[in-house]
Structures are given as C-alpha cells and as structure tokens.
C-alpha cells in the first residue's frame, strides 16, 4: 500500500480509517502482518506456535482478572483464592480456565518443539529463534512452577518447599538463590509476594520480550515449510489463520470441557452442581505443622519427581544430579541441536533424542502414576497370602520359611511378592493421604463458608481450632494406640477392636454407648473393659451380676439410668420424657444403686472408689479425665494405664495443651460446626 490512495466514494468508517492510515500507516502494517506467504499452502502442522500465543494471551487475560481479586500474603492468599473460587460469580470458571490452560500450554509446548525438531526448523538461519524458543519454554515452566504456590494450599506449599530446596542444592550459589526466592530463611509472606511478582511480573514481562523477538525473527525468516512442497503457496490470511483459529478454539474447548464435564455428569446423575467445586482444585490451607503425604508436583513435573528416585540413596549428590545436572545436560543437548542438525545424521539424532526424551518423560510419568495408584489395579487376590505373611513376619525374609511350614519353593514365591506388597502398602497410604487431603480441603472450604467468615488470623486458624479436622489427628496420635474410635455397626470392626487395649470411644456420652456398657455381653468385651485392668473389676461384676437381677433392676430402670446419663453428657435424645430422666437420676444417685460406688451430684458418696457421674460425658467431664484420669473424680488409684495428658511432670510440658484436650473432647462428643442444609 502506498500512502496516496485514489479518491473514492467512501463512508464515514472508511474516511475515519483513511484519517488514521494517513497518520499511522496502519493498513500497511496490518497487510504486512496478514499477507505472509505460506510456501506449499496452509497446514495443520503449523498451528502449534499460534495456539501457544493464544494460550499465553488467555493466561494474560485470566491472570489479570485473577490479579484483581488475589491477595498475596500468608493470611490472605488461600482466603482470597477461596473467595474467588467459592463466592465470586464466575470465579470458578476464571480460575478453571487459568489453571487448565496452563496445563494445556505445557502440552502445546511439547507439540511445538516436536514439530520444530522433526521439520528441522532449527537449521540455519533459524538457530537463534530455536534458542529463543527454548528460553520461552523455560519461562513458561517457570510460570507454571511459581503459579502452583500462589493459592498457598497444602499441595502448592509442599511442592514449592521441595522445588526451592532442590534449587538450594546448586553448588556455591544454591543456598543464596533459595533464600532470595523464598524471601528469607522461612516460607511466608515474602515467599508469596516474590512468587507472585515472578509469576505475574518478571517472568511474563521477560516472556513477552522474548516472544516479540521470536515472532519478529519468525517473520524475518518466513515459515519453515515442510519439504517437499507439492501444493501451491497460500497466504497466511485467511488460509493459515483459519486453521490456527480452529486449533485455538479446539484448545479452548478442551479446557472448558475439563472444567464443565464434571458438572454435566453431576446433572445427568440428578445431582446439584455446586459451581465452587468445578474447575481448579483448592487444597486445605498451607500448614507447616501438618504432614502432607499426598504431596506431588503438578503432573507435568511428575517425571522429574520420579527421576529423582533413580538417585535414591545417593543423598544430596543424587538430588543435585537428578534435579539439576541431568536436566541441565538435556537442556544443553537441546541448545546444541541447531549445530548438530547441520549434518543429516545429526538431524536424525535430534529427532531421536527429542522422541526419546518425550518417551522417557512419558515412561517416568507412567511409573510415578503406577507407584501412586497401584492399589487401584493391583490383584489383591493374588497377593493375599503374601500380604498375610508379610504382616506376620514384618517383612523379615528370614522368617518366611518358618511361616510357610518349611516349604522352600513357596517361601521363595512369597518373598518374591514382598516387593509388590510393599508397593501396594505405599500406594495405599498415598491414596489414603489423598483422601484425607480432600476431606481436609472440603472441611476448610466448609469452615470458611460459615456466615462469620474467616477470622483475621486466616483460615489455618479456623482449621486448627476445628474439632472435626483436629480430633481424628489428635486421637490417632495420643489415644489411638490403646483406644479405638470405630462405629460398631461397620462390618469387620471386631478384628480391630480385639487388637485394642482400651475402650472404643465411638459415641461416648450417648445412650447407645452407655447401653453397651450396661450389657453383660459387652462390658467385658474389647469395646469396653475387656482389654483393660478393669476386666475383673467391680463394674464388670456389677453389670454381669446385680444388674441381671431383674426384680431389683427392671428393664425400665436400666433404660432410665441410660437416659439420665446421656442427659448428663448433653448428648441424650431430647425426645426422652423428663420423667424418665428424673427417675434415672434418682436411681443413679441412690446409694442402693449406682450411688453405692459413684458420686452423683449431691448424693454424698465418697470420691475415689469409682468415677464421678456428675456431668458424665460432658465436655467438662471429658476434659477432666483426659487431663488427669488419676484424679479422685475419675479412676484415682485404680487408673489402668491412661496417662495424665494435661498434667506436667515437674520441669516439663504436659503431653497435650488445654486447647488440644478441648478439641479432643469436642470431637469425641461430635460437637463441631455443621453448615445449615440450606447453605449448600
């Protein structure tokens, strides 16, 4: 186009266009941009670069909008992401697109690289552009890595700890680099502000810079046409642009599909779609004090995670080799490709190397997935015997021969299966950890959604003070080696109860629990006193003796006592008639009945012979017994083996802090926040 167009009849739009064209020359620029010759015509194989630009554009758009609602700090990152995901209209879709387009970008990168290498598009004069492409690839991977942390949830937090610790392994500068990236010696506010600045500032700005040069050089050299050219040339616009646009739409359709398919499934199953549950996952808030066995990097870094296992046993040297030296060497080979590719054999080597690399990545990813999810497809039937013997011998191969009765060939088979059993067990604990992580995440979201919202201290505070989240952990850690907490209605409970050495506390404080205690069949069983020193105690004797004298203890009396004690705990059935409870209270207090041994209210029975039943099973009562079971209100000198969790020996700390004991008591009593049904 030249500046002076012939006079023509023109509308307002054209005149306006002319006005700006005269002053900017935009028509020529657009023409320049669109009318690029495509030797041999438009092809689908040329779309990858354009889809990558499109994916990046999508990330910029969604990223800017996310930025408008995100807050990078230890007390607000998870919280603001929760708010975007669960409270803001369309936030789930915005986050979903950003999250899954990032993953699509990694796939598109691999395809683009593969196409460039196979077509030999790195050869002269395009070497520099190939190198720029590799830099762009690293920048994209860097953005993926930094973005993973920003929600400040458990998985992002632990994955980042691993990644930054690996960076610390680089000789000489490693520790300094690590401390700079982390923003100090510990992970916190400045880790987030720095990762956010990297993710949304430094890295994309650098990427744009490199991308511009990459595109300028691409236009300078023209498209590297697939040889031999058999078809006539075509124009970039509209032939290639159409193919590019269709590919972009397909990429977006896949991303939207990943987000929306679960919603369609839910709808088809007749369920209600909760928008906040669609799209990108949000784990429980980052907690450096909680183990997180479900920690895995995002799937496209899983191969590196698996690759590090190759160097297991080599210590820090192995990790340095696996995480830095080998990937560095691979990048080095890739940077050399344009030089090596000058020779026909070199070009073939490059193709083989790239395919081999992708195959290796695929294999490692597959291995990683197989290790983690092995339990889902392992043939348990076939491993049943090996599992049993593995448990009996605790994996000690020397003991296997005896365990199978001296049958040498069978012992060899069993020992041969031990590796699979171990793999199965590791996979099972991983899957359990994933399940627990999901439950924790759901609970955190549930707590954040309370009408009172999140306290200024952040969501972690909520989770840490939540009996439902903390109770099972504290119980497993401090109570679970003796006590069980198992619903007796569940199948297979007996075997687990038999292994315990103290009462099953499931439903403690309820009428059901008390009914079991007063059942002569159960009182000396493993769910109550069966595996304790009280097995032959007065209570067992009473339940199996006096209580069976139905002239004194009419069934209605027993029911009344149960109702009265459940009322003491506050967990009784509110429908129980007050008269029944009152009758029960009288029986419990009576010095001819329970009151003969137990203190109840003002009945005057001395403490120290049996538990005080005043407020039995209430929060205060439970806190008391956990704090100090040797107190005269509880077991006194008759205490079996239960430690005084809240009482410190001189000069030391108690095993549990008061608030932890409170959490345990609340959890045992089932007292925790439940969302109103209408809220969901």
């Amino acid at each position: 186009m030249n500046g002076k167009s012939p006079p023509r009849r023109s509308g307002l739009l054209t005149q306006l266009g002319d006005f700006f064209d005269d002053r900017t020359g935009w028509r020529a620029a657009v023409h320049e941009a669109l009318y690029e010759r495509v030797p041999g015509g438009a092809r689908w194989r040329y779309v990858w670069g354009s889809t990558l630009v499109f994916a990046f554009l999508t990330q910029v758009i969604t990223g800017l909008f996310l930025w408008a609602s995100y807050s990078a700090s230890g007390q607000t990152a998870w919280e603001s992401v929760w708010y975007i995901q669960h409270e803001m209209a369309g936030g789930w879709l915005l986050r979903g697109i950003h999250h899954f387009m990032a993953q699509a970008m990694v796939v598109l990168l691999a395809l683009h690289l593969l196409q460039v290498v196979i077509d030999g598009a790195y050869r002269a004069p395009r070497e520099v552009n190939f190198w720029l492409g590799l830099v762009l690839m690293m920048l994209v991977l860097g953005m993926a890595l930094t973005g993973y942390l920003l929600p400040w949830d458990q998985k992002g937090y632990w994955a980042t700890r691993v990644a930054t610790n690996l960076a610390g392994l680089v000789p000489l500068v490693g520790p300094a680099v690590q401390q700079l990236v982390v923003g100090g010696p510990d992970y916190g506010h400045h880790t987030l502000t720095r990762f956010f600045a990297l993710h949304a500032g430094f890295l994309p700005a650098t990427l744009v810079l490199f991308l511009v040069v990459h595109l300028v050089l691409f236009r300078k050299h023209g498209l590297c046409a697939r040889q031999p050219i058999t078809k006539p040339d075509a124009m970039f616009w509209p032939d290639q642009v159409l193919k590019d646009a269709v590919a972009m739409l397909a990429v977006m359709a896949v991303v939207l599909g990943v987000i929306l398919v679960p919603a369609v499934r839910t709808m088809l199953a007749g369920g209600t779609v909760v928008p906040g549950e669609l799209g990108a996952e949000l784990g429980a808030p980052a907690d450096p004090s909680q183990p997180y066995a479900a920690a895995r990097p995002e799937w496209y870094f899983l191969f590196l995670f698996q690759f590090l296992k190759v160097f297991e046993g080599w210590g820090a040297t192995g990790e340095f080799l696996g995480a830095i030296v080998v990937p560095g060497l691979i990048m080095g080979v890739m940077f050399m490709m344009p030089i090596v590719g000058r020779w026909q054999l070199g070009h073939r080597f490059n193709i083989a190397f790239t395919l081999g690399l992708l195959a290796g990545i695929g294999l490692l990813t597959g291995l990683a997935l197989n290790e983690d999810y092995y339990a889902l497809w392992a043939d348990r039937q076939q491993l049943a015997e090996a599992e049993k013997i593995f448990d009996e011998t605790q994996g000690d191969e020397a003991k296997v021969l005896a365990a199978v009765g001296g049958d040498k060939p069978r012992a060899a088979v069993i020992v041969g299966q031990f590796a699979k059993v171990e793999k199965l067990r590791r996979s099972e604990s991983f899957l359990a950890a994933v399940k627990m992580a999901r439950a924790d995440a759901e609970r955190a979201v549930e707590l954040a959604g309370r009408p009172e919202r999140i306290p200024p201290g952040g969501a972690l505070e909520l989770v840490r003070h939540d009996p439902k989240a903390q109770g099972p952990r504290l119980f497993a850690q401090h109570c679970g080696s003796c006590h069980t907490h198992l619903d007796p209605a569940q199948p297979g409970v007996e075997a687990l109860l038999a292994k315990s050495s103290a009462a099953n506390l499931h439903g403690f404080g309820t009428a059901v629990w008390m009914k079991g205690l007063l059942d002569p069949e159960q009182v000396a069983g493993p769910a109550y006193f069966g595996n304790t020193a009280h097995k032959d105690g007065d209570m067992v004797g009473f339940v199996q003796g006096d209580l069976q004298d139905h002239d004194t203890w009419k069934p209605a009396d027993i029911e009344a006592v149960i109702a009265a004690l459940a009322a003491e705990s506050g967990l009784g059935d509110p429908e129980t008639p007050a008269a029944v409870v009152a009758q029960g209270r009288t029986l419990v207090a009576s010095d001819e009945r329970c009151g003969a041994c137990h203190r109840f209210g003002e009945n005057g029975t001395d403490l120290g012979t049996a538990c005080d039943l005043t407020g039995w099973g209430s929060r205060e009562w439970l806190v008391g017994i956990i704090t100090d079971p040797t107190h005269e209100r509880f077991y006194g000198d008759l205490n079996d083996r239960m430690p005084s969790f809240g009482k410190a020996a001189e000069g030391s700390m108690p095993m549990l802090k008061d608030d932890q004991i409170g959490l345990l008591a609340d959890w045992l009593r089932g007292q925790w926040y439940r969302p109103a049904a209408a809220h969901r």
Partner: protein
Amino acid sequence: MTQSARPEHPAASESRRGFFAKVAAVACGGLATLAPVAAGLWTFLDPLRRKGAAATFLPVTELSAVPDDGVPRQFAVVAERIDAWTGFAREPIGAVYLRREKGSTEVEALSATCPHAGCFIELEGNARGFRCPCHNSQFSLDGGILEPSPSPRVMDSLECRVGPKGEVAVKWENFYSGIAGKVARS
C-alpha cells in the same frame, strides 16, 4: 511483503472461499478469546452484586458520656464487619459526632463523613464549628453550612435513639457525597 507475492487474479469461487475462510477464522478466533474475556468480566463485575450492610441501630455510648453543653463530641461506631473473606469481630467502622442541648435528654447525631467528597470532618479546636481538612467545607455545630463552603449540603444527620438505661444508639448509614440531596447508599 511485496505485491507480487499475492496470488494473482483469484477466480470468483476462490474469492468466495476466501470470504468464507475469513469469516470462519474471525468467528473461531473471536469465540476462543471470548471465553477468558467473559469469565474475567463475569468475575470482575461481581462487586456490583454485593450490597452493603443494611442500616441498623448500633450502640455508640451512654447518655452520661454526652455532656449537655451543645458541643459535639466524637464517638467511634463499633460493629462486626465482613470484608470479603474476613470476618472481623466488633471493631470501629466509623465515627459520629453526638451533641446534646442544655437539659435535654435528646441526642443529635451527625455523620463525620463530609457530604462534599467524603473526607473526615474535624471539630475545630475552639469548638465553634466543624471544618473538613480536605477542601475546607465549614459547618456550624448543628451541622449547618457556614459560607464559604464547597459542601453541597449540610452535614448528614443520623437517626439517634436513647434507650431506657441511657444507652445511645445511632442508625449507621452512608450517603452519596457531592450531591445536594441526602441519598442513602444501600
């Protein structure tokens, strides 16, 4: 690009095909880009759905803390507050001026927010009137305009109740600034 690089004299069918390709390319590209833009705007416009807390009476102080000398005193308004994801327990959310005439048990309440541009109005040191430090809006002790004053209206009065035990409660409301009318923000 040079002119000669373009294909020469495309046939009519070719140009129809070209037109279709152009429309299809723009449609596909536009549709693909629409998704992130739409999702972004959808989320970005979320604040428009949100309503401020409804105007409610909030306890401010005791009657005995407001001397009956006609001079306004500044009091903090304390309330629970929810800011996006954070729920704050009771904390100061704003301020009011309370004054009482000699011998009266009725309390007048004036919002400390300037009706001109929303700055915080200050009581002048000599207690003769109010002055907004931003643009020098001036008001008398009962909130009336003292010329010259850029404020378009008198200070915003707030409903005030004195309970049987002398507890003073103010109906906490915000009004649009910069206009002559006193219009509550909801």
